[in-house]
């Protein structure tokens, strides 16, 4: 799991360096983390599952063995979180 928050002060981390495993080139800079990477592991799994099920919450609820409104609430929580990141 990619760390997204500073373990010392809990501020949001940024990407300083990326490395090519093939030719060892390093690209340095100060890049923002993608919004989806800021979500927790479970939330990212949820988003992946949502996309794979073509956005069908009904299908997701039967796969996860959860009720439809529970799955919809999970999605709403993720939407609120993403909106929160975007307004920062």
């Amino acid at each position, binding site marked *: 799991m990619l760390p997204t928050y500073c373990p010392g002060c809990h501020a949001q981390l940024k990407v300083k360096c990326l490395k090519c495993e093939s030719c060892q080139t390093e690209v340095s800079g100060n890049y923002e983390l993608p919004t989806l990477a800021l979500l927790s592991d479970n939330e990212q799994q949820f988003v992946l599952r949502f996309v794979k099920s073509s956005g069908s919450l009904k299908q997701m609820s039967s796969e996860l063995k*959860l*009720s*439809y*409104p*529970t799955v*919809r*609430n999970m999605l*709403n929580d993720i939407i609120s979180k993403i909106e929160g990141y975007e307004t920062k």
Partner: protein
Amino acid sequence: MKRNEFLDLLINPFTRIAGWQALMSGITVFALTIYIGFNGNAYFDGIIDMHFVENAVLKYSALSGIISLITLAVVMSIACTLVTKNFRFIDILGTMTLAKAPFLILAVVSLFVKMPALEQILQNPLILFTSVSFIVMLVTSIPVIIWTIILMYNGLKVSAGIKGIQLNVVFVTTLIVAEAISKTFIFILLKP
């Protein structure tokens, strides 16, 4: 099943079951409650209450139960529309119907309750506390009502996806308003 999972299922089954599934299960338990309660001369004619009568009538018992349940779901849905658009009526109706399941316990207990005659109660209300079965009923009803309220609260929380103070205000207001409206409807529609 782990102990915590079992407890979760007892107080909030709605994370796993809602909508039509909850409605069908709820109706089955509700019908049993009404029928057994009728045999024990008990009416479930309110949002979270029951009453004993001398001679219960099945039609009144069933209709008053249905009116109170539908009133609760409709009032709750109207209250929810004021704070969110993101819910389905079937989830509210289903979860509220299933939330009444603990009343089945009271219906069964009512079969064994021998209430003193109304005249005796009017002459001396304290006579109720000399009846062992009435005291058992009273003691049983408190946890059952608390359980039902917890289920209704969690049902609303899951169905409407609201939290915090909004949830508390909608829940408390709904219970009070729905109780008043259902009593009025029952009085108007089912008066002898």
